[in-house]
C-alpha cells in the first residue's frame, strides 16, 4: 500500500479464513460477514455466543469465529434463552433459517420474542429448504415450485408466513426489521439494521430480530445473477422491507 492508497475494506477478524460450503450466489456468506462486522463494531467478540440452527448454516461456527452452540431443529431461541439467563453478561444471538425459525421452531421464536428475551436473532429467509434439497418452506411464495410443491405452492398449503409482521404485533420485542442483501446499498442497510439489533441487546432493551431476504440460486433453479434480481422482482412484494417494530422510536413519539 502506497501513501496515496487508502484501505477501504478488510476481511473481518471475526470471520475465520475458511472458504464456506455455501453454493455460489447464496446470501449466507454476505450475512455471515455482516454479523461478524457488527460484532467487531461493538468489540464484543470475547463475550459473544451464537446458537447455530439446523439447516444450511448448521456449520456457521466454521466461519463466524466466536463461541457457538448447536441447537435441536427450531430450538435455537430456547437454547439462547438458556445461555442468556445463565450468563446475562454474554452477548447471545441465534442465526436461523426459515424452516428452522418459522416452521419447526415457531413456538420457540414466538415465545422468546414475547418474553422480550434479551437476545438477537438473525433470520435468513430464502423461501425454501436448502439443506434437505429444496422442499417447501413456511415462507415459500404462492406459486413457487419446490420439490414438495412441484406445481407451485397452492393456497391450501397456506400463504407464506410473515415473521416480522407477526412478531411485531407483540409487546415484547424491541426491534424488528426486514432487510435484504441483493445490492450494495441494501447490504449497507442490512448491516445498519444488524448493528441496531445488537445494540438493543447490549443496552438491555430486549429481543431484536433482523430478517434477511436471501437468494437461493440452487433451489430457485436460477443462475446467481438472475436469482439476486428475483429478490426485488418477486420476493419483496410478499415480504416488504422495513422496520416493523422499534420500541425506542415509538417511545420517542409517544
Amino acid at each position, binding site marked *: 500500500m502506497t501513501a496515496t492508497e487508502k484501505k477501504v475494506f478488510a476481511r473481518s477478524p471475526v470471520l475465520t479464513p475458511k472458504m464456506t460450503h455455501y453454493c455460489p450466489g447464496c446470501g449466507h456468506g454476505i450475512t455471515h460477514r455482516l454479523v461478524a462486522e457488527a460484532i467487531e463494531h461493538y468489540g464484543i467478540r470475547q463475550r459473544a455466543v451464537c446458537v447455530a440452527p439446523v439447516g444450511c448454516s448448521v456449520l456457521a461456527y466454521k466461519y463466524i469465529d466466536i*463461541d457457538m*452452540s448447536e441447537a*435441536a431443529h427450531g430450538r435455537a431461541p430456547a437454547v439462547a434463552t*438458556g*445461555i442468556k*439467563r445463565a450468563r446475562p453478561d454474554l452477548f447471545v444471538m441465534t442465526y436461523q433459517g426459515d424452516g428452522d425459525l418459522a416452521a419447526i421452531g415457531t413456538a420457540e421464536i414466538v*415465545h422468546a420474542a414475547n418474553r422480550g428475551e434479551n437476545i438477537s436473532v438473525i433470520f435468513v429467509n430464502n423461501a425454501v429448504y436448502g439443506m434437505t434439497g429444496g422442499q417447501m418452506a413456511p415462507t415459500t411464495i404462492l406459486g413457487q415450485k419446490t420439490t414438495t410443491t412441484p406445481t407451485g405452492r397452492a393456497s391450501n398449503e397456506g400463504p407464506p408466513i410473515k415473521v416480522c409482521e407477526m412478531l411485531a404485533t407483540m409487546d415484547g420485542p424491541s426491534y424488528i426489521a426486514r432487510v435484504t442483501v441483493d445490492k450494495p446499498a441494501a447490504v449497507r442497510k442490512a448491516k445498519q439494521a444488524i448493528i441496531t439489533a445488537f445494540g438493543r441487546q447490549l443496552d438491555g432493551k430486549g429481543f431484536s430480530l433482523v430478517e434477511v431476504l436471501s437468494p437461493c440460486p440452487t433451489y430457485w433453479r436460477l443462475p446467481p445473477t438472475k436469482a439476486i434480481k428475483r429478490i426485488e422482482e418477486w420476493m419483496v412484494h410478499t415480504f416488504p422491507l422495513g422496520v416493523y417494530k422499534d420500541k425506542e422510536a415509538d417511545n420517542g413519539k409517544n
Partner: protein
Amino acid sequence: MSGNDAVVEGAIRGGVDCYFGYPITPQNEIIAGMAARLPPLGRVFLQSESELAAISMVHGAAAAGKRAMTTSSSPGVSLMQEGISYIAGSQLPAVVVNVQRGGPGLGNIAPAQGDYYQATRGGGNGDYRTIVLAPDSAQEMHDFTIEAFELADKYRTPVVVLSDGRLGQMMEPVELTDLPAPKPVEKPWALTGAKDREPQVVCSLRLPVPDLAEHNRVLQKVYREIERVEQRAESYLTDDARLVFVAYGTCARLSREAVDLLRDDGLKAGLLRPITLWPFPNKKLLAATKKARTLLVSEMSYGQMVDDVRLAVEGRVPIEFLAYAGGEAPSVKELYALGRKLLKKPRKKHASKGKRR
C-alpha cells in the same frame, strides 16, 4: 414435606443455577416451588412454552457452564427426549426429574413406572445412555437430586431421577442436610465468550464418518466406566433369602413390607432394590440372589425392569412377575400371599413365568 417439595430443596442444596420447566401433573409442586425459592436466592427460574423448549433451555444453560435442570412427568418427558439426546451427544451435564404417571399417551395422572425403558435405554435418537436414579422416598427424592448434579458433572452426561406420582405427592419427614456449597467444577469446555482463548463449539454434530465414529467411542467409554463404578442397589435381608423380591421405587416399598411379614412367619424372604436403573446393578443382584430359589419382580408396568433382571440372572433362577398399570400397584397383602405360596412350594425346575392382570 412431599417428595416433589423435597426435589426443590435437593436442587437448591445440589447447587442448581438454572431451572426451566413446563407445568404437568403430578409434579406441579416442583415448578411452583422452584418459582418461589430460586429467584430470592439469585438463581434462574423460567417457565417455558413447552417441554421441548424447557430441555433446550437446560441445554443452553448447561453449555454456558451452569448447573441446569428440568422436571416433568411422562408425556412431558417424552417431548424432552429430543433435547436429552442433544445434551448427551454434546457431552453436557444436566438433571431431569421424571415424576411418572400413567400412559400410554395422555394416560392419567396416577403413579406408574411405564417409562423405565425410555429412561434406561437413552430414550431419544442415537446410541447413548443416561444415568437413572430411582428414589423410593421423599428423602431420596431430595438426596438423589443433589447426587444427580454431582454425577452429571462428573461424567458430563444427563442424569434422570425416575420417580412416580405416589412418591412425588406423598408427605414424609425429610432430613434436609446442611451441605457445604458444592465445589465449583472446572468446565473449560463451557461457552463463556472467547476471552484469552480460541473460540469453542458445543455440539453433537460430527459430519465426517470417522469423527462421529470416534465421538461414539468416546461416549461408550464413559458409559462403560459408569457401568463399572456406579451400579447401586439396596439389599434387604437377602443373605439367606430363598425368595428375593426385586423392585424399585414405590414397588420396592411395598415389597419390603411383604418381606417383613414373611420374615415374621419365619420364611426366608429378602428384597433387592435397584437404585441405579442404568447402570442396572447386575453384580449386586447376583450377590443378593445366591441362595434364591425364586425371584419375585413387581412393577407398575407390564414388564420393563423385569427384562434387566432376566438378563442379569441369565435363566439361573425362575422369575415370577406381577404387572400393574394405569395407576394400580400391587398390595402388600398380595405380595405377601404370593411370596408365601412361592416359599412353601416344592422346588421345581422351570423357566420364568409371568402373571399378568
